[in-house]
């Protein structure tokens, strides 16, 4: 069971603001999903290695050479706010 404080902590980690009604419904939904997930505990997984990636891809290295990439103005174009050569964001401390 995931409680309100725990949910607020996780939402904080995820940089996600939640309304009061979202908090209420989400806590119950997450709990039911996590209960289902907990059925994994029925399995004996002793000595079994985790799989993070399927397949036998080796480290994929290329020569360290400068290649063509998106021009700066093209990369900046979709941004909500830019100034000079960069993305513009509010101050971390506020005004």
């Amino acid at each position, binding site marked *: 069971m995931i409680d309100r404080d725990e949910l607020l902590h996780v939402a904080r980690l995820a940089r996600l*603001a939640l309304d009061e009604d979202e908090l209420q419904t989400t806590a119950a939904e997450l709990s039911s999903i996590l209960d289902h997930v907990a059925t994994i505990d029925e399995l004996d997984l002793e000595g079994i290695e985790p*799989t993070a990636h399927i397949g036998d*891809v080796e480290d994929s290295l290329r020569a360290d050479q400068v290649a063509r990439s998106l021009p700066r103005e093209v990369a900046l174009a*979709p941004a909500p706010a830019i100034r000079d050569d960069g993305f513009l964001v*509010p101050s*971390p401390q*506020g*005004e």
Partner: protein
Amino acid sequence: MADDIQALSAAAAAAAIADGGLARAELFEHYRARAAADELNAFTWVAEDEPTVINGPLGGVPLAVKDLFCTEGIPSQAGSKILERYCPPYTATAVANLAAAGAPLLGKTNQDEFAMGSSNENSAYGPVLNPWDRSRVPGGSSGGSAAAVAAGLAPWALGTDTGGSIRQPASLCGIVGLKPTYGAVSRYGMIAFASSLDSAGPLTRDVTDAALFYRNLVGRDSADATSVAFPGPIDLPTSERLDGITLAVPTALVDGEGIEAGVRESFEASLETARELGATIVGCEIPSAPYALSAYYVIAPAEASSNLARFDGVRYGLRTEASTLDAMYTQTRHDGFGAEVKRRILIGTYALSSGYYDAYYGRAQRVRTVVSRELAEIFTKADFIATPTSPTVAFRLGERTADPLAMYLSDLFTIPMSLAGTPAISIPSGLSEGLPVGLQICGPAFSENRILDAAHALERAIGFDGAAARSGGV
């Protein structure tokens, strides 16, 4: 003439263009007009003019592309409000490969937000309707792609599959959907959901179209370090028999609860057809299958919570103005993401957080190892695993939205293959109460040629007719 064009498969249309019987521009305009008149909400963007077409093996047959793929200068919104009107500065490799092979972009298709869903009801741009029955879902997350092909609004479509998102909508819409071996298709420019599971593949009217599409889609891409070269060419399927082929059926899973009687009946009839074509049917077990679902609903949200951190109001998409940087992040994400995406970000963040990592993510990754081993063990004794693609036919709009867990259970048969990274196809096996049922055939990694061949033989023998859905849609 319009009816004649509408009756052509993509491969047949390409052949008609090649021999001069059909003008490329006429084919494009036929589908452009149908896509523009779409009443199913399958499209989120439709081309106004035919783009420059490269002469190639796909013959100028127009292509619908799931909105999860970046297309330069064209809205790529991934079903999310956070990417409303976002026009990327580059095109995904999968789309570029198909364009280079002669498939011009017809339109972008609706989907569950960031590919999270099994019904297409999680789209910020509204649900897609199933062309077989407009009161029902088309499946998801590639619901727009599946509905467009089934309704004859597009000759074929590109989709993505993370836990079943090509196969399940293909099944619910009565078309063919192929989830490739993980890594066979570049993920560059495909907006990431769960990177270790995401695969791009075709949704088509028949198996031959899927093979033609797929042979032009695969390939190692230097822009995607996890992509691999497909070992050898993809052939167009020719098989009409299944002599010497062994199909393994996971008996306990297929006989389990929650499988509709009509789905089971259609599946058993397909097995009988396979026997008549010379196949041997054997039983098998995937004891970890129920746990695979649990593991998937840890691994996919965990990876998603990390991938979706990039949507923060800084570089693209929505921004909600606020007085501090942190408030801008949290409010932007609150306003931009829908309920299911928030749910998965929270589950994923929880599962990866300090104190829970080993209990959830670590154990889920171990289950993934077990699932892969169990499938590999079956493939030492059988050529393929066969199951129904979905435990049910298309369900009614709104029927499962109140219960996220019930929605997740739609993916029971498709998730083991996603975790193992193995290829699987869904082909229509018949109708149950007037709605399509899908048959899933899964093989070991890089067995796509054999899967397509077997699917071709079964498709011919089953003789499914999707014409009823193709007359609607507009």
